[in-house]
């Protein structure tokens, strides 16, 4: 009895720890090697940088030479804008679908569910046509629009579930108080679904930040390239500048890590406690 009970958590932890190591290993490898000289990278890729192998040449190249600051700014603005649109529009749509019974609400919900199941990349050709005819090719706006569309279905789906769990009494109490529907949404619903918003934010921003596909086909220009696209310039057909690639990848982790830390603080809180009963 006792042994098997002890074994349970141990086994689980062993599993989780080994998974964590497997998941983190490539990332750690990138970070270690970005601080090493080119020779050291190839000679002993698995060793930590030491006094002999330590070399910042990659970072110098990335930060000094190319227009990397532009790429960074592009990536950050695309991610933040898409994130803002997905969260605000998604929460509003979720509230509408959860709270109001209007003709066609079932159809809209179904339509959105299809959006979750079918990857948006299948529509790349038509998206490209639409963006071209709108004259938005090579603009960040094109990316923001596409990413907003990509993120909305899942956001609405998740947020709707959370909004449906908010006790009706809270909304009704507010309505009795003469509070407008807009203010119920902004002052009551949004604060109460903050943990869900954080979850959705994390799910939304990571694919957007990492995406290479849409920047490549919709905004490949020098002024609009994102970090993921910018890194490609170091990967040549014949020579790849590994120092620069690893350094830029390491740098690319930083902003998203900061955003994640901001949101993950919200994830843990159970905000509804004390609402009713």
């Amino acid at each position, binding site marked *: 009895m006792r042994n098997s009970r002890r074994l349970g958590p141990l086994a689980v932890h062993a599993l989780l720890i080994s998974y964590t190591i497997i998941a983190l290993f490539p990332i750690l490898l990138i970070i270690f090697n970005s601080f090493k000289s080119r020779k050291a990278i190839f000679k002993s890729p698995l060793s930590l940088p030491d006094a002999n192998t330590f070399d910042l040449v990659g970072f110098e190249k990335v930060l000094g030479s190319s227009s990397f600051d532009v790429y960074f700014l592009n990536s950050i603005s695309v991610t933040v804008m898409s994130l803002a649109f997905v969260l605000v529009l998604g929460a509003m749509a979720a509230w509408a679908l959860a709270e109001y019974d209007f003709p066609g609400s079932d159809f809209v919900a179904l339509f959105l569910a299809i959006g979750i199941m079918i990857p948006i990349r299948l529509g790349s050709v038509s998206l490209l046509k639409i963006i071209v005819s709108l004259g938005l090719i090579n603009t960040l706006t094109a990316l923001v629009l596409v990413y907003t569309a990509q993120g909305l279905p899942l956001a609405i789906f998740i947020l709707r579930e959370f909004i449906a769990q908010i*006790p009706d*009494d*809270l909304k*009704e*109490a*507010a*309505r*009795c*108080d*003469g*509070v*407008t529907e*807009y*203010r119920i949404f*902004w*002052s*009551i619903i949004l*604060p*109460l679904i903050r943990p869900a918003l954080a979850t959705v934010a994390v799910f939304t921003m990571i694919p957007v930040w990492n995406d290479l596909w849409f920047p490549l086909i919709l905004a490949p220009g020098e002024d609009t390239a994102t970090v993921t696209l910018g890194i490609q310039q170091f990967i040549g057909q014949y020579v790849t500048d590994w120092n620069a690639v690893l350094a830029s990848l390491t740098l690319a982790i930083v902003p998203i890590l900061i955003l994640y830390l901001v949101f993950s603080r919200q994830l843990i809180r159970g*905000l*509804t*406690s*004390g*609402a*009713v*009963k």
Partner: protein
Amino acid sequence: MADIKLSGIRKSYGSSEVLHGIDIDVKDGEFVVFVGPSGCGKSTLLRLIAGLETISDGELQIAGQKVNDLTPSQRKIAMVFQSYALYPHMTVYQNMAFGLTLGKKGPLGGLLGGGENKKMIEEKVHKAAASLKLEPLLKRYPRELSGGQRQRVAIGRAIVRDPNVFLFDEPLSNLDAALRVNTRLEIARLHQELEATIIYVTHDQVEAMTLADKIVVLNDGYVAQCGTPLELYHQPANKFVAGFIGSPSMNFLEATVTDIGPEDIEVVLSSGKVKVRLPVLPGDLALDARVSIGIRPEHLQEGSGEVFRMSSRVKVVEQLGEASYLYLENGEDDPFCNEPFCVKTNGHSSIRTGDSVDICAALSAVHVFNASGIALTRTTTDSRYIAPRRA
């Protein structure tokens, strides 16, 4: 002025009707309690009055104005929910002030605030908080309050809005017994202080009897009876109200009419052994009709009096200190046909389980209901058994 008038109010959910034509008049400043068993439609009726549900048919007037199509805030009502419904992410102060920041609509539908000025709001909140002893708690969050304190905040939130009508839906049912008594007194005090019209839903008849100016007993979507607490107690209009009001509830016996006089009837109990004349107007009662006879436990005594000189064995004795309840058994010699027959005696009664007792009741304490459960009018003038005239 906030009279409320319900005429022919009906409510259906899909094809099932849950309220079948409710007519109630509530006068300004009156404390009206809706009682009834679970599922009879009390909450639904309250929510219709609040404007949280649409009225299927009939007319609702508040202060002489038809309000069927107005929103809750336009009706100037404030509701206190059973679950308290406090906003968990706001402090007590913010909870109470939240509805006020919109006294007048600011730009964007009040989204940007505006409306009543800050000082007035502060004043109102502090005044309400003071009257509910909430002042030390104003900075706390609902999760940091006890159940009773949350309830007071919920009431405070209603008070600051200064509504025409207060609506309460079972506000005390989440509190423990002692706190319930306190809060009940508090609500009674508030009613006197505010002179407000209050509609209060409960299934607890003690709350109903103690708080109400007028009780509306609902049964299955109909108004079973509407009147002062004492009217319902002494002159129940039907068997349902008779059984519902009073605790322990009224005892019922089956009987058959054997003679009809101008102002009384003679009945024989179904055992065939007890035959009495009862002072009630016969109405359209026929000979041999089946009737039910109702006697409250507190109107029965040990001993042999005017009616029902019967002996029976005691099955259970419940001693409460100030009184004891005897539950009598169906003996060979007794007429008690259905449920245990309950008698209230004084607390120092020496009767024990298994003893035989004689019980009796005054004729004028007896209620008679016809086969469809409607009460026959009693002719008694004994002030112990009739409700005092309304002023």
